[in-house]
Structures are given as structure tokens and as C-alpha cells.
């Protein structure tokens, strides 16, 4: 799949909607009562390919769905798991809710920040990791918890951080 390998610049320059994605979005659109309903899924389709949703994707999605770009933009900026800036190859979601907070979340965040050299909302210079906060991960019996991509871990002690991240190249 050559299109999968398509690179876009960090400012979104060079973005075009891949044919395969256009079809996938149209397919979603036809599954709902109204095209707007496919909006979130359309954004996820673009994000799966590029890792994030550049500005140029907004009118392109709007065109496929037959709705205004503002309707897409409003949704794209609302949801925390739709990324509007480039993210690293791996996204770390650190749970900062009450149970993890009571079980040394601060120390875990400090260890992550020290190891990666970044704070919440930032991406490492080598483009490997992005660090983000997340709502209660529902792993409260094993807090503090975090996710790396699709994998949930807990409890994660500060000393575990180096080993844990090693598994994600």
C-alpha cells in the first residue's frame, strides 16, 4: 500500500484524501441516517493513516459527507482522541483521575517526563512518543495506570517506566 506510506509535512502540507479513505468514509456515511453521523469515524479514518488530522483534511471530509466544513471542524476540535497536531509514533495516555492520583500519579508523571524530556501535550524530538492526559482509564484497582497505544498497564511504578517504554520503538 503505497498510500499508507504517504508522508505529510508537520504543518499538513501535501495532504490529500487517499482514495481508499474516501471510499471508507463514503461507506460509513451510507450506514447512518444522516451523513453527519459518520463525522467522527471519518476523522478516525484519516487519523489512522496519518497519525493526526491536518487542517486540509477538514474540507476534504466535509465534501465526502456533503456537510459544511465548520460542522467537521467543530467535531474535530471537540474530541480529545482526535489529534490536530502531529503526534509521535506512540501515544502515551496517562490516567490522572482520582484513584491514580491517590496512588502516586504525580511521581509517575514526573518519571515519564524525566525519561522522555517532555511534559503533557508534547512530543519527543525524535518523534517517538507523545504524552497526554486521559480520563479515568477504568483500571483503578491497579493504579497508577497508563496506556501506550492500545495497551493498558498498571500499576506502573516510576522505576518501571524505562523498561516499559523500551518495548515501543
Amino acid at each position, binding site marked *: 500500500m503505497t498510500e499508507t506510506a504517504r508522508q505529510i509535512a508537520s504543518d499538513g502540507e501535501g495532504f490529500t484524501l487517499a482514495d481508499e479513505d474516501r471510499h471508507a468514509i463514503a461507506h460509513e456515511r451510507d450506514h447512518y441516517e444522516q451523513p453527519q453521523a459518520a463525522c467522527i469515524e471519518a476523522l478516525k479514518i484519516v487519523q489512522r493513516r496519518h497519525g493526526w488530522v491536518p487542517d486540509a483534511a477538514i474540507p476534504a471530509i466535509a465534501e465526502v459527507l456533503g456537510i459544511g466544513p465548520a460542522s467537521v471542524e467543530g*467535531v474535530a476540535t471537540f474530541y*480529545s482522541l482526535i489529534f490536530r497536531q502531529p503526534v509521535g509514533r506512540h501515544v502515551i495516555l496517562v490516567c*490522572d483521575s482520582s*484513584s491514580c492520583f491517590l496512588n502516586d500519579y504525580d511521581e509517575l508523571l514526573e518519571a515519564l517526563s524525566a525519561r522522555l524530556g517532555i511534559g503533557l501535550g508534547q512530543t519527543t524530538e525524535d518523534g517517538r512518543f507523545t504524552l497526554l492526559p486521559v480520563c*479515568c482509564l477504568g483500571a483503578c*484497582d491497579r493504579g497508577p495506570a497508563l496506556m501506550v497505544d492500545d495497551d493498558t498497564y498498571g500499576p506502573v511504578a516510576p522505576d518501571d517506566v524505562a*523498561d516499559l517504554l523500551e518495548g515501543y520503538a
Partner: protein
Amino acid sequence: MSVSRYHCQLRQSAAERRAETHPLTWRLREDGAVVGLDEYLDKDGYAAAREVLDHQSSDDVIATMKEANVRGRGGAGFSAGMKWSLTMKGEGIPRGYLVCNADEMEPGTFKDRLLLEQLPHLLIEGMIIGGYANHSRFGYIFLRGEYVEAARALTRAIEEARAAGWLGNDIAGSGYDFDIALHTGAGRYICGEETALISSLEGNRANPRAKPPFPGQSGAWGKPTVVNNVETFCNAPAVMRHGAAWYQALSGELSNDGGTKLYGVSGKVAKPGLWELPIGTRGSELLERAGGMRDGRALKTWLPGGGSTGFLLPEHLDEALDFDTIGKLGSRMGTGLLTVINEDQSVLSLVRNLEQFFARESCGWCTPCRDGLPWTVKILQSLERGEGERGDLEMLDKLGSDLGPGKTFCAHAPGAAMPLQSALKYFRDEFERGVAHPPSNAHADPIPVGAV
């Protein structure tokens, strides 16, 4: 690697769990793996759905659910049977939607995850019964995007059920058509609010909507829509299989509410976990099952069911954990998963953490919530630094009341007000210690209005 993947696990052995006493969890496997269709069928699976589809009317199902008084396990505690009886249905009214709220994000809550990951067919069966009762044509499971393992289990289970004729047209030869689609979210706690969830399902920003009209009258795409929590749906098969009286009796003398509840404990306890117990079980028993306090530290306070419930004291552990009893104490049972705080921990800091969560997760639709929550956080942060000012506590009192029920568009801000107000009530001294200047010195030389 020393850190392990998270896997949700009930802390009750198979020996303790029986069909007659543990309707939600008796089918769970000891190894924690998902119960597939064959195993589910071997364990009396889909028997309730078959009975309902073959022998009962929609009204019969609703009457039994009402009588059993299955109260909404998402935290609000509204009777599911009552909700179903209010859904618009009948000739000339389009068949609408049945939505399962699987957007579990309440701080301190990890119960629906267990059912979704390990017993997806129980949820599907519950939804078939709910769909039939509400004349729904289509069901959606609104699952939070981060529950990846649950998404896998549900996708597989829906396919299995469809292949076996339990979903689709003419379910099990009954003439009833009903299918389910999995909808995964893209973040934001507010999606768990019933009407915001519908907005999100329609592909919009997850802003809540005014009620009335209630979703049962006009919900998703203007059609009658019923939204229930995962655990609520999972109660329906056993209620229909064994009857309302049996369900009511499960809680014995412990509570006026019937059935069992997935209770849990997290925080500073020795063995945090999840248990299915009769509704009305005391907090003291839960704490005991959780191995007591960790490191021998004393219990300071606890939240009975998530971040949007009010703090309770150690003396309240002897009260029944049900909707009415905890409500009378000025809190809410919420999700029924306890968060436990020990004597060394700061309630002020925890409240700051909770209010930061609610401020971040506000959808921004109405002003008290959008502006009041960040303001609350600012004050709490300055108190935490010991830089609070005279009047801060009174301002927090006012914010707590201005964010309360009836003052905002939905229940998000009232949920945020609950831990704030109860903390100010029970732990006021912690807040007072954050005020830097004794009252006599504060603002001794205020800047005159208009002077800048």
C-alpha cells in the same frame, strides 16, 4: 519487564458465584478469558431472550422490570422498567434506538469493563430483551475508545450472535428484527451524559440537550431512544428468567432495592478489587474484602461511587450502599465503586484533582459550568499553595451552590459540586489552612475601585 498488562478481574472465586445469587458474574471464567457463544449457551445463555420472544409481550417485560425495580446502574438509579414504560411506541410511531452507555469514564469506576470484556453475550442478551420491550429496531453500544479489549470482545460476540440468529431479522424465529452496532467514542467524559451521548452518536459535539423532550420521546435522529448502562442491561436476562420476586429477594433485608450490584474498592486499601454482592451491602464489608487499609494507615474519608459523589466519613461505612440510603446521607451511590482516602492524604488536593477533571471535561455549553469550574480550580490551587485569600472559602461555597442542580444545563456541574460541597462540610479546616493571611490583615490596603 516487571510491569504487567492490565487485565480486569473479579475477586470472587467460581465456588462463591452461583446462578441463584450472582446473576451478573456466575458465568465468568476463573481464568478471566472471554465467555464465547458456545460456553454462554452451555451456561443457560439466551434462555431468557428465548422465553421473552416466545411467550411475552413488550408490556409483560416492562411490567416485570418495573416490579423488580432494576434501578439504573450508571449512577442515577432511575428505574429501568419505568424508563421503558415511557418510551413512545405503538402504531404510527417509528421504531427507534436502544443505546447501551458503555462510556465508562467516571473517576474510580471499573465495573462495566469486566462485563464488556468477559461477558459480551450477557449484554447482547440484555439488549435484545430491552430492544423488544421498547420496540427498538436498532441497538448501539457506545463504547469509549480506550476500551480496546472490550471492543474486540464485543465485535466478535456481535458476529457470533448474528451468525447464530440472535441478531438480525427474525431473531430465533420470533418475527422480531433487531441488530446491534458497536460505536466507539473519541474521548470526553461528557459523552456519558445521556443526551450528550445521543449528540455524539449523531456525529456532533457532545453537548447535552434540554429535557423534555426526553430521549424516549425524541432521541437519536428524532426517534424514540432508550439509553441504559451496561450493568443495567446485564440484569435484564436474570430478571426475565427468574422473575421479579426472585430478583427482589436477592438483597434480602439489606435494602429496599432488589438485585445485586458490582461493587468495587480502589484507593489506599490493601487489595483493591471488584465483587458482585447483594445491593445494600455495607461499605464496611467491602473494605474488609479489600483487605482493609494499606500500610496500617487509618481511613479518613471515602467516595461511595465515583468523582461526582459526595465524601462520606468512616462512620457511614455501616450504612447500606443503595441509592436511597446514600442519598439521604447527602451523597449519591453513583456507580457503587468506592474510592478510599487515608489519614495522610489531603482532601483539598483530591478535590483540586477532581475539579480539574470536571473543568477539563466540561463541554462548555453553559456558562456556570464552563466558567465556574476553572474558577473553582484556581481557588483550590491557591489554597493548596497556602496562598488563599479571605473570602475564598465563602466563594467556594457560593460556586458549589451555583453549580448545583437546576442551575446548569446538565448534571455535569452538579456532579462536580458534590465532592466540593461535602469536602467543605467535613474537612473545612483543610481549606482554612490554605488561607495565607489572617482575616485581620487581608486586603488591609485594597486598591480603590477605578484607581488603576
